[in-house]
């Protein structure tokens, strides 16, 4: 569980984070989006008890980040923006060191390292020096370090950066698995499709302030309007179609083999429209929502339009 109230961080003349309020429940993934320098990393650093807030408070896994900073750091797994590895150590030595620092016994360390190496398909390379790893492999090792002590709260900064599609898929699956096992997860990312796929909720931060916060569907509805539905036909029958659909909703646009309309209540309107089209004997091929990307939402928010 993560609870943030009025969290603020000031560096001399720069207000990096300004009155941030957020909640992430166990079993929830929050994607924290925002342009570079918006305050994402500073927020994560305050949540991991590395930096102290100038004002406000945050509680992570039930511990106050200032008062119980040691407990917070024990219960958090932080994937930093850069992997930050010790390149003269082997992968195994590196993970063993962090396991020891986190107080895991030797047998527990061995067990966790083997398990994670197996999951991330890194078992064959663990004895190699980290300096010989590819960027994607380094990112995987950093992620293994984050998960080593099985923390209830995960703070992940760009978890799939520099990874090939297969590895990125593996990481996304890991995050979803963490969600299913009731971890609270915050993912900072610039990868919007990834955020859309992973996040239960999305918060956009701009100039240190949270400007929007909600589920992906809520944000789309709020910022892009009602969903746009599209009906496709197997043969041309334009005039009849418009006439039938117009009885229930306003037609937004139509073509030879298609028609679009907007509705804020698709669960009520779509069955009615479909039934009417079929009753009129029109050759309906499909009825679906026109995909609207999170990117459109994000761009509207960061450009200040929303």
């Amino acid at each position, binding site marked *: 569980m993560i609870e943030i109230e009025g969290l603020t961080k000031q*560096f001399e003349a720069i207000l990096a984070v300004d009155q941030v309020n957020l909640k992430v429940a166990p079993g929830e993934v929050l994607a924290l989006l925002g342009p570079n320098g918006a305050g994402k990393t500073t927020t994560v650093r305050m949540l*991991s008890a590395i930096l102290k807030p100038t004002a406000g408070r945050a509680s992570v896994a039930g511990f106050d980040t200032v008062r119980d900073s040691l407990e917070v750091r024990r219960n958090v797994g932080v994937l930093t923006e850069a992997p930050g590895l010790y390149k003269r150590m082997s992968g195994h030595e590196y993970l063993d060191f962090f396991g020891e620092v986190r107080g895991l016994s030797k047998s527990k360390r061995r067990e966790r390292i083997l398990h994670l190496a197996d999951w991330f398909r890194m078992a064959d390379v663990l004895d190699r020096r980290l300096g010989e790893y590819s960027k994607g492999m380094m990112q995987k090792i950093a992620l293994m370090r984050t998960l080593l002590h099985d923390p209830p709260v995960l703070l992940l900064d760009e978890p799939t950066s520099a990874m090939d599609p297969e590895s990125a898929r593996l990481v996304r699956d890991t995050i979803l698995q963490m969600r299913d096992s009731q971890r609270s997860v915050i993912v900072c990312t610039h990868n919007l499709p990834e955020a859309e796929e992973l996040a239960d909720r999305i918060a956009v931060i701009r100039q240190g302030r949270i400007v929007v916060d909600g589920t992906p569907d809520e944000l789309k509805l709020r910022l892009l309007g009602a969903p746009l539905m599209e009906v496709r036909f197997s043969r041309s029958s334009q005039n009849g179609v418009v006439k039938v659909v117009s009885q229930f909703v306003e037609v937004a646009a139509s073509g030879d083999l298609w028609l679009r309309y907007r509705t804020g209540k698709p669960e009520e309107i779509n069955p009615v429209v479909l039934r009417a089209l079929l009753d009129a004997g029109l050759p309906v091929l499909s009825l679906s929502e026109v995909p609207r990307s999170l990117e459109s939402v994000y761009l509207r928010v960061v450009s200040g339009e929303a």
Partner: protein
Amino acid sequence: MVVDEAESRSGVRSRGKLWKEMLGPALVLTRREVKDSLRDWRIIVPILLLVTVFPFLANFAAARGLAFVNQYGARLLMERLFPFLMLVVGFFPSTFSLVIALETFVGEKERRSLEPLLATPFTDLQLYIGKLLASTIPPVLASYFGMVFYVLLLGFTVNWWPTFSLFAVGVVLATAQALVMVSAAVIVSAQSTSVRAANLLASFIIIPMAFLLQAEAALLLMGHYGSLWLLALALVVVNVLLLRMGVTVFNREHLLGREVDRIDFKGAWRTFWQAFWPRRGLGSLYLREIPGLIRAIGPEILFTLLVVFGGGVFVGVWGAAQFPLPLEVMDLSVLGDLESLEQAVETAGILPKFSTLAIFSNNVRSLILGGLLALFSLGTLAELLLLAPVAIIAYIAMLVPRLGIDPWGMLVAGVLPHGVFELSAAVLATAQAMRMGVIILRSPEKGGGVLGIVRELGHFVKLFIFLVLPFLLAAAWIEAEISTRLTIGFLSGL
């Protein structure tokens, strides 16, 4: 009683457990860092060369030197050089502690591997201790190895063995020097965000260390081996101060709070001007601001009085007992009249002429030099600069009774009239210079850092222009016009 003992035992146990809990994780970090350093050939190769080849070279030079000076019956000369070479053999590997410290503190910050470490349950103190030990242990062990190797070689080749005390002080000095460099490197690292910037700032460490090595050389060549213990004690005191400041500045906030080195010239100038320029006219300057500044440097004034007068008198008295001038060189005839005195001063060439301007400019130069040196030496060189004339006066005062002169009378006639102004001004300027030198040890949050130095520089200039200069001018006039005549009068009335 039984309860007390049980409580006491459990207290000892819990303290022991606490210590283990505190030190245990720090040692995990130390082990990792030491292993990492030992895998870096850029560190390990020079250290290996220094502890194997260099003692051979030193031994070779010592043996050849001994053979040469023996021809002239001057074995003593080389015997004074043997321990110095031992200290040098120990010193060079220990300097790697500075390299490793800068690398391990600021280098890790630059490579961005520090943040994952900061996100672990280490306390700031554990991180500090772990890294401090990791930077100190390999170079210090190398130093010990080099010194032992050199001594063994020398013992077997020329049959010279150091006394236990001399070898022990060499070991203590090598350890203390390494610790001073490491603990100072932490403070330097906290002020910079890149290895490059830290290397540039490292001159604040290297310059005082170079002075230290010269002092060690001088003591060894003069055969004052016992004084090396005093030097070692001074280093331990400096270490305690630096370690304490290091603990203060080494915190997560500090390490990750700043991302770039930014020199804020405008801010620095504003800070200087605010500290220097009188706020509300001359009345307020002399009634409020300057008394406030003097109150603020109260501890430094006390320290300066203690060091300069206590230390100066001690050195003068000790010098007079150890190295008294022969009676025949103490020619008092030159003090018969002002002209002869001026002639003698000019011939000696070490004192300023007896004119107001010459005395004034000489004193101004000395105190400005003290201020500058203070910046590079944590204030210590400013204190030493003022200690020297006090020691000379004490030295002369101890010798003149042998000529039948009352030292108190001479001091009252020749020093007191101008000394009231001159010494007051010098103590104030030196105390403020001391403050300027030690402010670097404070974290920016507590008024230290670069802006702290600039602020204290502003106070130094303010105190200097508005108080020290008028005092020095008055002192110079009194010295040239009154003290000299009083001294001559006093001596001719004997």
